[in-house]
């Protein structure tokens, strides 16, 4: 006889028995121990038919192929740049992928990206040893000038973006800031300094309260309060 012991959408801890019996299947963040399915993470239980998953609530960013991230240059190499990805592993931007224009042999690479510069970039490959290749060739990928970068919990990135980008566009509309959210938890905000602060505060609020029901409504009220403007959610 199989049954689910833990409740769906509730917080489960490592070692907590989620279900008994062979009718359920373990997926990410869970494993089978004898007849039981046990959580291997602190997270929220999701039940998808017979498949049990634990969605993590915290944890460092693990680079994935295809992710668009915001990275910072830490080192200029002989033929490329080393960048910090806000994870345990740095990435290399090769000369070939650094610019769409031709970079002559022996050129000063700091002309293109200097140490400390931020960029929106895309991960093209991650090896088994977590060596990372990135590229600047693609729509929207560019060096960032001005503005400010803030760091949030990677697991909260989907919350900051919202369904179909609704949350981030609400903040954009309200503050008039340009906002780019990297999958690695780095968010770049640019606009009027006063508005930048409002945007940053709002993002921090989302990060802190993302697990509380009715988040969108709460953030809407917060934005209306601080900006004094009516927020129209349907305008994207």
């Amino acid at each position, binding site marked *: 006889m199989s049954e689910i012991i833990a409740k769906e959408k509730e917080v489960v*801890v*490592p070692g907590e028995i989620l279900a008994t019996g062979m009718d359920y299947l373990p997926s990410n963040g869970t494993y089978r121990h004898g007849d039981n399915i046990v959580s*291997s993470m602190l997270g*929220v239980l999701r039940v998808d038919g017979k498949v049990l998953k634990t969605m993590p609530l915290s944890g*460092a960013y693990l680079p994935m192929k295809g992710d668009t991230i915001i990275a910072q240059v830490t080192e200029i190499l002989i033929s490329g740049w080393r960048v910090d990805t806000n994870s345990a*592993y740095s990435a290399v931007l090769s000369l070939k992928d650094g610019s769409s224009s031709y970079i002559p042999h022996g050129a000063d690479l700091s002309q293109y990206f200097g140490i400390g510069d931020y960029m929106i970039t895309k991960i093209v490959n991650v090896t088994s*040893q*977590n060596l990372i290749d990135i590229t600047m060739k693609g729509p929207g990928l560019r060096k960032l000038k001005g503005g400010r970068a803030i760091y949030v919990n990677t697991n909260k990135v*989907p919350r900051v973006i919202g369904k179909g980008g609704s949350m981030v566009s609400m903040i954009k509309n309200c503050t008039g800031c340009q906002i780019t959210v990297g999958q690695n938890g780095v968010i770049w905000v640019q606009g009027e300094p006063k508005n930048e602060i409002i945007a940053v505060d709002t993002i921090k609020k989302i990060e802190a309260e993302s*697990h509380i029901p009715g988040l969108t409504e709460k953030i809407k009220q917060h934005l209306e309060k601080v900006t004094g403007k009516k927020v129209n959610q349907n305008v994207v």
Partner: protein
Amino acid sequence: MSYKKRLDGRDFEEPRPMEAKVGIIPRADGSAMFKIGDTIAYAAVYGPRNLHPRFLQDPTKGILRVNYNMMPFSGSGDRVRPGGSRRSKEIALVTEKALLPVLDLSDFPNAVVDVFIEFPQTDAGSRCAGISAAAMALADAGLAMKDLVSAVAVGKVDDRIVADLCYAEEAYEDGDVADIPMAYLPTLDRFTLLQMDGVVAKDDISKGLELGRKVCRQIAEVQKAALKNKYGAGVEKNDS
């Protein structure tokens, strides 16, 4: 002479009052406090992060690095000299060995997970409190863990088997004392730390282990409640 009543008035199988909190150090990736009686442990977890010096890097998996530190005026007697000692190095090692069996660091080659355990106040059982705190901090850091780790010391004071010795009991002078710190995985039913200091009969060790199991399960409940309590208000019901 026999040990009729515990020095602090507890039942023989009763641990000291416990308290646990998770997420107390905002800058750390994971953190927790575990208090049992007068022993207080704070654990902070950083990482997985880049590991230096490079010769420590393991290309097959991430490593765990534990630091155990008693603050200068944390003991009941003399000032503890700051910095590492033979004792702190040993305890850091056994703590690491007690935590590693539940962790899966194969996703993080060449990286390190750092665990710092600090004691503002101690009254015996510090390595056990440290392990219990570190287990919560590691879970809070979002690392894949097969189980929690709960730790306690059991022992024999004179002729009685007791749970969770306080310092006065460890220093009991009217009879033999044995002190057995252990770490236990409550769901997998495995021990990951077992040390002993003192003299004890074979039968009493089995009885002690049984008692340790029971107390560790109580500790696990406290740890579980603390981890869930961090997200007290519940989780939003819809996906995004």
